[in-house]
């Protein structure tokens, strides 16, 4: 049973949006093959058995594609591994006897609802502002029916990998949502179906992003370093170009 590890989980407990919150430390007997979320499941079972309130955290697919899980683990959104979501982070990356600090995402636009759960609906409203194609794009077209350069298709696909988890906002010392917004703007703006509305989309999404109270980007690059889908800063450069083009080259409505 050498695969068992004993951990101390120092976790943020907060009753609701109004209360203050603080850290509590709990011992957990985990197994190194567990994912981080499974380890938290073990903790919650212990808490329920002790008739205590379990720790609230978000999770859904548990296979790294839905963007529901979050958490800031030892200061890093989705933990220490590059290109890995919290649900895909395994306990073998932690040492026996280690104290792991687990915090919710911190940003004014992501208020804490309870324990580790934050309200990320600001992202939904940014998508609603323009993160779509207005016409019905129909079935998947036949191969090469719409010619798209390989590099463009590849770049768009890389941007489309964004799962909207909000790790970029959590990692950013400014609480900026530029990496998320720019990934959507780039993903759609590079393809012929999305390019038609690119200017209107960029203006609307940036306006909504600002309205939600996210911070201003200062090109630190913490978002890029922490993104579990490895979305790059060149998306932000693309969005800036698209925005300049929309503002200075576009018609007055």
């Amino acid at each position, binding site marked *: 049973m050498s695969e068992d590890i004993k951990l101390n989980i120092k976790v943020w407990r907060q009753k609701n949006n109004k209360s203050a919150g603080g850290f509590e430390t709990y011992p957990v007997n985990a197994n190194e093959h567990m994912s981080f979320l499974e380890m938290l499941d073990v903790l919650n079972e212990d808490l329920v058995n002790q008739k205590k309130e379990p720790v609230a955290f978000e999770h859904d697919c548990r296979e790294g594609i839905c963007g529901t899980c979050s958490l800031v683990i030892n200061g890093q959104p989705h933990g220490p591994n590059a290109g890995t979501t919290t649900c895909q982070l395994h306990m073998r990356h932690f040492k026996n006897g280690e104290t792991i*600090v687990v915090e919710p995402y911190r*940003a*004014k636009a992501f208020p804490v609802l309870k324990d580790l759960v934050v309200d990320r609906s600001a992202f939904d409203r940014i998508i609603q502002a323009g993160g779509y194609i207005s016409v019905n794009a129909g079935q998947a077209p036949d191969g090469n029916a719409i010619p798209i350069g390989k590099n463009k298709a590849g770049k768009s696909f890389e941007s489309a990998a964004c799962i909207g988890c909000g790790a970029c906002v959590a990692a950013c010392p400014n609480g900026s949502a530029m990496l998320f917004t720019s990934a959507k703007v780039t993903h759609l703006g590079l393809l012929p179906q999305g390019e038609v509305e690119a200017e209107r989309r960029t203006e609307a999404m940036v306006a909504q992003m600002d309205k939600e109270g996210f911070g*201003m980007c*200062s090109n630190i690059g913490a978002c890029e370093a922490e993104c579990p889908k490895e979305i790059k800063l060149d998306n932000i450069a693309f969005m*800036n170009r698209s925005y300049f083009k929309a503002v200075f080259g576009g018609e*007055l409505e």
Partner: protein
Amino acid sequence: MKWLTTFFGSSIGKKLLMSLTGLFLILFLLIHLIGNLQLLKNDGGMSFNIYAKLMTTNPLIKFISYGNYFFILLHAFIGISLALYNRTAKGQKYAVAANNNTTWASKNMALLGTLILAFIFIHMGDFWLKMKLDQLPMVTYPGIEGEIKDLYFSVNETFKQPLFVGLYVIGMIILAFHLQHGFQSAFQTLGINHKKYTPIIKTIGLAYAILVPLGFAIIPIWHFLMK
């Protein structure tokens, strides 16, 4: 005109102002340095004093210098207001500091910038104000009509004091860190992020951030040791 005010009120519009004013100031630093390097000439300050007279009397240069003061203040004002806004936008800080691949300078631009602004005020008080208030001795040079202000004398006096030499060297170290992030960041904001050009921009930016402050810092050190 509403579209323009909307633009400059947006996050990207403010970023663009930071980038463009920053790039102007980067260019200014290089020109300032080229002028200052005349302080290293062994001619008793003649070429530097003639240069200083040109810089303070030529109408075109005067016009650009007022633009320069304006851009320094605008860059500082937007930068500080953005930093304050970002502090509230972040809200609560994490209990554990992240250990990721970001530079210290990039996360402390407002602090570095404020220190540079303070340095600029001290620096202006040292030389610019003395030049303006006619507190300098006058000199004459053969072939030059009339008397000109001996700014070189003032530079020499200032850099006899170890306190000022230290202050100027520290000021340049702060500037180097500010440039380390600022140079390449200005291009990213303009939307220039390209596999071909970004490595070149980053290399030039790093060289610039080291060499330009170093060039400035050599002057007080050289004056202190040699004069």
